[in-house]
């Protein structure tokens, strides 16, 4: 019996950024259909989903904006992991807000994000 994985969902905020568009192209290049979801409707999407039912790709900034206005960021991030089976988040640049998200989603394993100093 083949395990059927969920189709990838690309989450964006307000409108897909150029990098979101590139990620969508890459997903489709592999022969996969890609559903795009605006962060403003994402809560409803998550609410209706079974646990560990989603494969979600997004930029760290999108996740930051999505949970920024929610009353409990930590609970939102935990809920995200509750509903998703796979999460791919890119673009963790230095800054407290994104470092917090990385920390929360890694159960505290990630403490900070820093610029690379090597040549």
């Amino acid at each position, binding site marked *: 019996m*083949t395990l059927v*994985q969920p189709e*990838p969902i690309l989450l964006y905020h307000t409108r897909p950024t*150029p*990098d*979101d568009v*590139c*990620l969508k*192209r*890459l*997903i489709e*290049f*592999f*022969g*996969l259909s890609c559903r795009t979801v605006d962060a403003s409707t994402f809560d409803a999407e998550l609410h209706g989903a079974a*646990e*560990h039912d989603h*494969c979600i*790709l997004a*930029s*760290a900034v999108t996740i930051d904006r999505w949970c920024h206005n929610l009353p409990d960021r930590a609970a939102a991030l935990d809920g995200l*992991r*509750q509903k*998703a*089976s*796979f*999460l*791919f*988040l*890119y*673009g*963790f*640049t*230095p800054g407290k807000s994104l470092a917090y998200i*990385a920390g929360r*989603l*890694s*159960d*505290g*394993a*990630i*403490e*900070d*994000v*820093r*610029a*690379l*100093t*090597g*040549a």
Partner: protein
Amino acid sequence: MSSFEPGITREFSGLSFSCTRNDTDSGFVCSANSNGAVPLVTIDDMPFWVVAERNLCKTFLLTCSAVADIQEQVNGIDVGTYFSRLLPAAMFLRWVFKTRCWHGKRRFANFIIDDPPLKRSYGYLNYRNLLAQMDRCEFASTIAFIPWNYRRTDNRVAQLFRERMDRLSLCVHGCDHTTAEFSSTDLAVLNSKVQLASARMNSLERLDGLSYSKTMVFPQGRFSTGALTALKANNYLAAVNSSPSPAYSGVYGSLTVADFLTPAVTRHGGFPVFVRRYPAGLEQFAFDLFFGKPLLAVEHHAYFKDGGARLAEFVTRINSFKKLQWTGLHDIMKKSYLEREISNQITACRLYTNHHVIENHAERDRTFIVTKFETGDVPIQRVLVNGVATRFMMIDNVLEFATRIPALSSTVVQVVYRNSLPHAELERGFASRSHVWAHRMLSEFRDNVLCRSGFLLAGAQALRRGFSGHGAVDPRQNHVPSIVNK
């Protein structure tokens, strides 16, 4: 690259190479207690891509702030430059969606040696030594054979090739191997050149019992889009070249990143050009294997100057890739296709050459929806499935048909083209033949005599500097003087 999650990092597991792009990349600072988070990629000892698992959710966190645009126009892909913007996302998708992604089932490899005639030795290359080394190190080679040499074969070497087809094979390297002979834009000349090369190779097959792959390696790597059309019209399988870009792309436009992420570039008239590489960092070959390309390495006789030590070291490193199959170029061309699972019963299959063996690895019968990019510049005469003509459709430059393949068996698919290209009378007069003969003899003198003598080599280089006004020598040729072009 971490080797803890080889299912995710695949061919790149355990590799180290330069890939920093400071403008888009950052590093994570991790606590001493990792809580199950595993760094998949580190840059300068800082985790750059991390996977964390909790309950039934795997979370992949990447610092890179950009994603590669696969529609970007490029001349080639340097893995170090594109890695952070491309590979983590691609690895994630391949790992999560597995057979639902386009993928190749096999990992092929071949070491191509350009130019040598089938004589006991040529320059630093000795066939018996090569064979012994192939047996010792576990690899296979293809000789890119110059058709002009078809009547100059040593019987003992021919016997070696006949007896050891598991290690040694032949493909076509130009026709006369004169300067840029396949750069012409004259379709009639190109068509006749391809036919002359084929006739010579067929004679070699008839006279010496040596089969060959209808795969073209262009002399000096130079070719035109017309050359690809001529090869297609003559039912060649493919071309293999260091660069997939013709001298002038014309109406086909520039290549994009996406063109380099498939087994072969087919943009130019739908004829496949497979990319080969000189021995270099493993990451370049890991990149090829990751995207379902065969691992094709190339060198000339001078690479054997050290008795094969460099080659042995290179092959040992290459053989660290798991499940690598070294085989002849012909076999590789026929089995390098992509597939993806649509359902338990249906597989999509994307062909590149005109002759494929499609394998159903499943323990149940499957229907394969077969597609192949076609531009219509060379008419299709028929499509054969196991030798029987089959119906096909053309939809938006894509040839498509379906075939059912029983469990654990294979099907042979051939696309036969009609050659309606014009012909030209090639110059075969005394002057022309003498020119080609002199060109070939000078090449062999260079490889057999000059290259093997430090004194003569230095003299030839000095002479060349004197004539040309510069002393630049292609480092790939291992200081071979360019009396004639390789």
